[in-house]
């Protein structure tokens, strides 16, 4: 061989060429397969939204079921007022990370709401993001059309400890949510608290945390408190308190009566 493969210059050239070749190969493959991956993520999101209203579907069947059950999606701003934008496409995790990092402002954050109709019930599906022990935790909580009673929920995480923090994604944790309420009877906000120690399960605004997963449980608690507070403003604005009968219906009635009279 004409060159010395152990010379310094060849070593450098070899290392450089190798890294560039491997890097290019990975980049090309990633870009080529990105559509499939994105589609998987999209379907999983639909699957999660459906799971929060207690509809369990296979991932491949999720888009059809999603289209059937989710009637409307919208964004609300930090004050619970409707805002412009694509609700499903909004990356709430990125928005949350930006806010945590001080890049995004709290008042600029947007919150998606999915309106679902399941077995004749109108439900609001509320996505949320928080921080566990090792990374992000997230979930979807569905609230009934009284604007305060939880119908179902689903939680997931990036990499919480299996057997401890990761238990937030299991029925043991999730099944505690239905029936809990996020406000008092009079409408004052309470949110949902995740308790340490199992004696508080009678609290209508609290669930039992995961033993050994304290930091994860605290993260979920913080996530629920913070995000539901914003959604509560929205829910109060759309769910009217049971209104006492007012003059208007009577007026209509009298007009009907009047018009029915012989001229």
């Amino acid at each position: 061989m004409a060159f010395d493969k152990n010379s310094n210059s060849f070593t450098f050239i070899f290392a450089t060429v190798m890294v560039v070749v491997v890097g290019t190969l990975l980049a090309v493959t990633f870009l080529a397969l990105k559509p499939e991956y994105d589609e998987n993520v999209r379907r999983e999101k639909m699957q999660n939204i459906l799971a929060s209203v207690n509809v369990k579907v296979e991932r491949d069947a999720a888009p059809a079921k999603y289209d059937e059950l989710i009637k409307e999606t919208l964004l609300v701003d930090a004050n619970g007022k409707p805002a412009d934008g694509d609700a499903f496409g909004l990356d709430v995790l990125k928005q949350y990370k930006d806010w945590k990092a001080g890049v995004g402002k709290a008042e600029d954050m947007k919150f998606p709401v999915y309106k679902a109709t399941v077995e004749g019930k109108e439900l609001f599906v509320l996505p949320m993001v928080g921080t566990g022990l090792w990374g992000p935790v997230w979930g979807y909580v569905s609230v009934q059309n009284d604007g305060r009673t939880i119908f179902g929920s689903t939680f997931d995480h990036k990499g919480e400890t299996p057997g401890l923090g990761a238990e937030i994604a299991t029925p043991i944790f999730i099944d505690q949510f239905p029936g809990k309420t996020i406000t008092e009877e009079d409408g004052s906000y309470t949110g949902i608290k995740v308790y340490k120690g199992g004696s508080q399960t009678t609290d209508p605004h609290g669930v039992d945390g995961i033993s050994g997963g304290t930091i994860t449980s605290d993260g979920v608690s913080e996530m629920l408190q913070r995000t539901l507070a914003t959604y509560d403003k929205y829910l109060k604005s759309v769910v009217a308190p049971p209104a006492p009968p007012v003059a208007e219906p009577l007026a209509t009635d009298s007009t009907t009566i009047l018009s029915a009279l012989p001229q």
Partner: protein
Amino acid sequence: MSTETAAPAKPAEGLFSKKNRKLITDPLNDNNPITVQVLGICSALAITVKVQNAVVMSLSVLAVVVVGNMVISALRNLIPGRIRIIAQLVIAAGLVTLVDIVLKAYVYDVSKQVGVYVGLIITNCILMGRYEAFAMGNKVWPSALDGLGNSLGYAWLLVVVAFFRELFGNGSIMGLRIIPNEWYATAGGGYFNNNMMILPPMALVLVGIIIWIQRARNTKLIEQA
């Protein structure tokens, strides 16, 4: 492995000469990477809860070891001695990342479960062991066979361990229910899944039992007192 190996007798070695066949058969038993060399144990303990995970993991390791062995063997006269481990690592890491991307795109659910371990294939000792010990000093074809043999030796063990763990731990194989639902205590029967089976230590016990059986039967492995 029988008569198909009677390749035309060229001056060069046949593709499946006796020596080449040994490259595949040796790691299945006499020189099994897990039971004899005790390499790749960590992944064998971690992902053998379900047969499906074991199969996917085995296929991933197979792809990475075979292709990696071939690439390194092809480059063996070019790789500078001083950075050869780094070169092997770059190739291993590249291939593993490739496998990870492919799994995410085509078998998303499985990739969510084995995802973290796929990344750890890079640190699987079988990989670096084969790259350094075999591929750096042998031609491309024998290296491919060597990779195939070793990953198959890894694969059968993983699948056997996963078979017992899924059967006794979950009552199913490949997600298909084997133990009828009516047998379970919740349905009035007297049967319980063995939760110990789900936990990693039980995999170690199972691997130990397999090593025991293998050593009892294979005289070549019996150490002289």
